């Protein structure tokens, strides 16, 4: 009997440590969800692909055109230019858009869930552009084409025309995707509005599930 007890003691000592040894590393997502949208000038510090980080930028960029008196309403679309100096993609610094003809729009959407979620970019558009006298030009007179340097395939922010007085979808970002396009705006120039400077502001919003 004493021998039997001694054998079982040996068993415990020999078998105990075999399954116990391990070292542990705790991992946790630093940022489970991230979204970023840039229209024109943005707030990126450094390029994303080398550790750059997104930030806020309050700049409101402008797309504009001055139509010569002799050309007003002649039906020839007038190319607009932007005051945005940003042609380089904040992803890698690649000269993607040609300024001042084009305006950069892009960003990304990150989320730690399985699936194919999509973030949507909408434009909130006033009914009209207005001058100091209260005269109006419908926003629907402005449209845009899309495409940047080196592009092929479809664009995440496709060509379109403003729909005045509403909210319209102007593009989307798939989950865990960087999406970017370059927009070239134009004024249809099909009417004869009174002389003046007409302005209006469009608000772009990124919504992510």
């Amino acid at each position, binding site marked *: 009997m004493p021998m039997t007890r001694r054998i079982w003691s040996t068993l415990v000592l020999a078998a105990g440590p075999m399954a116990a040894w391990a070292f542990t*590393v705790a*991992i*946790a997502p*630093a*940022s489970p969800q991230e979204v970023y949208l840039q229209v024109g000038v943005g707030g990126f510090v450094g390029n994303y692909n080398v550790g750059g980080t997104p930030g806020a930028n309050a700049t409101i960029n402008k797309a504009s055109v001055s139509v010569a008196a002799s050309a007003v309403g002649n039906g020839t679309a007038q190319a607009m230019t932007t005051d945005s100096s940003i042609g380089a993609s904040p992803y*890698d610094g690649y000269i993607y858009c040609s300024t001042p003809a084009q305006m950069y729009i892009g960003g990304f959407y990150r989320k730690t869930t399985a699936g194919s979620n999509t973030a949507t970019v909408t434009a909130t558009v006033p009914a009209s552009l207005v001058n100091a006298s209260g005269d109006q030009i419908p926003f629907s007179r402005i449209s845009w084409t899309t495409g940047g340097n080196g592009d092929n395939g479809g664009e995440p922010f496709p060509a379109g025309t403003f729909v005045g007085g509403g909210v319209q979808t102007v593009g989307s970002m798939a989950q865990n995707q960087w999406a970017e396009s370059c927009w070239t705006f134009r004024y249809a120039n099909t009417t004869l509005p009174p002389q003046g400077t007409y302005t209006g502001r469009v608000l772009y919003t990124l919504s992510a599930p």
Partner: protein
Amino acid sequence: MRARFGSALRCLACAGLAVALVGACPVAAALTTAIDDSGTVVLSPSVPMRWQTLSPRRTTSELMTGSTTVQVRLNVMPWLRRSGRIYLVLPAQQPGAIHASWSTQGRLLPGAVSSGGRTLVYAGPISVPFVVDVLQLAISVDGRQMHQGYDLNFRFEMDAN
């Protein structure tokens, strides 16, 4: 009746002795044994996992990566003056597909392992009671599975000759 009882006790003793011999002799051929790594220290044991860079224009990247330093100290005294192979093991565990890679200061081999697997980090004679090295450990996981924090368990195993 008493004799049969005594016989049963002896059989139990024999069986116990056989198991004890296996457990107490980690140098038996092809025997895999977990190594006492209680002296191992993970510097910054809480690792923030960050998104790996995206590729622009439609290509997705769903990996999250993080890194830490591990001061390894393995008690290999039971195999002293014998030969063996040491493996770093990453058992299958949450959050799913995990990949780890590491560099070393030379005592152990650099390498990589995916969850559910093990990778050789040393092969040869065991001439010192403790194997010591520093690993720079990089971990990557599918970010879509990182719904919360997870404790990843690693261990070292010895295949003794």
